[in-house]
């Protein structure tokens, strides 16, 4: 079935009862999607990742991962918003209110005639559709059933934590969040969980002048889950943006992050650590556009792959004419724990300014045998020594997390998961 046929065969319907602003945004998104068609393997941007199971009419089944351990970030003091298989869980969620925060559900706000999110919903996504089509993001804007709209007008000390629970074996969730961080304001957003058997997530973030946005995400450990996630961010003058994603397990994950630095002296850091085994397929696709002077961007991505797992990195830095004094850095590295695993990297630089410093690097290799022997010669058992080296390898990505408590939480989890797997 061609993509166009597939679209016709299984048209999702736009949600009912939408207010004017949402109706407009959704209709426009659906038109964009129809024009683009669904992604296929012939698309250059899907060369290394097969999107078929992301676009199939039915979501392939995925059993929820059962664990009796405390959920990740379970002990963090945060404002919790809980979705189960993509459906808002009011009972498990906190009251949607906080100091310096205006927060609402998309499902509620979309029925209103007007909402502040109108200036951003689908807008940053649309901007991010050039020069590369991202049909799954357009589909998200059109059909998202819910999400969280967060407006931060001050330095918000308590993070907002979106918890994605997964129970139903064939759940298919589409959520869309919008974040607006006002001038001088600061917000930390945490996401945790698999969300559904198949998850399409979109996060649009507008970081105003001198504002700061920190984002930390852990994608859940269900073995068969699939996810296509999108972050579209726009950064104002002297603003700060940091995003880190931990991916452990999942049969297919495509994380796209599209950032536009539009104000001078802004900084954007995107990092990820992915750990996979067997039929694990993980794809980080990053596009950072420098369109202002003296901005900094960093991409730090680390993959640990074993038993035939696949990692993909497509990272681009585009420096527009006039974006002088740009400082761009990009590193993608894979640790291949056996000969069956593979890492496919496509680093790209496209530079139209003449006074910039951009560097990129990509490596994939086996574990350092000398270091392994050194540790073992001191009495550290082989698996434990290997775990130490793997954690050390992931360290550079974890260091990108601004909040030390959150970084420590993820490191502790990784240690525990590794040592359990080894025992």
């Amino acid at each position, binding site marked *: 079935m061609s993509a166009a046929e597939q679209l016709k065969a299984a048209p999702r319907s736009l949600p009912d009862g939408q207010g004017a602003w949402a109706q407009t945004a959704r209709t426009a998104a659906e038109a964009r999607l129809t024009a683009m068609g669904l992604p296929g393997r012939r698309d250059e941007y899907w060369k290394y990742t097969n999107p078929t199971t992301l676009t199939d009419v039915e979501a392939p089944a995925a059993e929820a991962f059962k664990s009796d351990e405390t959920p990740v970030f379970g002990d963090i003091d945060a404002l919790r918003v809980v979705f189960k298989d993509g459906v808002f869980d009011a009972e498990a969620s906190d009251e949607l209110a906080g100091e310096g925060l205006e927060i609402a559900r998309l499902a509620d706000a979309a029925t209103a005639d007007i909402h502040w999110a109108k200036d951003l919903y689908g807008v940053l996504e649309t901007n991010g559709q050039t020069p590369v089509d991202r049909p799954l993001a357009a589909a998200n804007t059109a059909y998202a059933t819910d999400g969280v709209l967060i407006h931060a007008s001050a330095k918000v000390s308590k993070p907002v934590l979106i918890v994605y629970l997964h129970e139903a074996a064939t759940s298919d969730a589409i959520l869309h969040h919008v974040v607006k961080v006002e001038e001088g304001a600061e917000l930390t957003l945490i996401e945790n969980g698999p969300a559904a058997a198949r998850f399409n997530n979109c996060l649009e973030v507008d970081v105003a002048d001198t504002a700061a946005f920190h984002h930390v995400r852990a994608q859940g450990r269900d073995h068969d889950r699939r996810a296509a996630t999108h972050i579209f961010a726009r950064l104002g003058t002297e603003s700060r943006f940091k995003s880190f994603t931990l991916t452990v397990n999942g049969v297919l994950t495509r994380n796209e992050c599209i950032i536009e630095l539009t104000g001078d002296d802004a900084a954007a850091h995107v990092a990820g650590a992915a750990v996979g085994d067997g039929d694990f397929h993980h794809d980080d696709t990053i596009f950072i556009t420098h369109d202002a002077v003296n901005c900094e961007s960093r991409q730090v991505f680390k993959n640990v792959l074993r038993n035939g797992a696949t990692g993909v990195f497509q990272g681009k830095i585009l420096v527009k004419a006039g974006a002088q004094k740009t400082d761009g850095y990009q590193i993608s590295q894979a640790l291949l724990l056996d000969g069956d695993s593979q890492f496919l990297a496509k680093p790209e630089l496209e530079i139209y300014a003449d006074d910039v410093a951009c560097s990129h690097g990509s490596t994939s290799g086996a574990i*350092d*045998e*000398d*270091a392994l*022997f*050194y*540790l*073992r*010669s*001191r*009495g*550290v*058992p*082989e698996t*434990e*020594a290997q775990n*130490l*080296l793997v*954690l*050390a*390898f992931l*360290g*550079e990505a974890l260091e990108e997390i601004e909040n030390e408590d959150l970084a420590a939480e993820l490191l502790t989890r990784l240690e525990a998961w590794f040592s359990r797997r080894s025992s």
Partner: protein
Amino acid sequence: MLEIKNLHVQLEEEDKQILKGVDLTVGAGQVHAIMGPNGSGKSTLSYVLSGKDGYEVTDGTATLDDVDVLDMDPEERAAAGLFLAFQYPVEIPGVGNMTFLRTAVNSQRKARGQDEMSAGDFLKLVREKAKSLKIDADMLKRPVNVGFSGGEKKRNEILQMAMLEPKMCILDETDSGLDVDAMKLVAEGVNALRSEGRSFLVITHYQRLLDHIKPDVVHIMANGRIIKSGGPELALEVENNGYADLLAEVA
């Protein structure tokens, strides 16, 4: 303590015999030195004893307190009390020196059926040992050997030795790349560890290290064998006359 009999070793990857029948017995509390020209098999002996990959033992035995070590994994040998101070200590980015030391100490205790050392006790001990080796807090915090000078790396080896309290210490050219002061410091660290129940095998090119770490026995190794053994005076003889006379004597 350490007993090596007729040890034959070849490289796994190529058919090249490196050790051609090494016989060596180090008694408890003794310090033995091995000297010899480049390529005589000194470092290979230290690697084979500590369990590095890439070598194949084709004949002979090596026992530590009558237990065969050649069949053990490197970590088991360490827990049994064997320690190799590396000629080139390995840099491990991302692993803190403290974490490394604590993991090593507790792994060995666990392997011996002992309780893990508490964080407080460990910290106290490591500070005390580090101080005598002039290792500052910063060196303990940094990733293992990363950015360390040659002297710092060697001192870090001795610190590990002091923390792990092995029975049998093998020092592979610990003096290489050290200036006189650094060598003294390292030698003092080693001497502080000398005891009745602990033996040393010191591999070196130069006699000067043996001025600081006084050996009981000196062996000369050449072409994969120990060709002569004697007292400390043997090291002086080498220093003065080189290996040529000794090699001629054997031939």
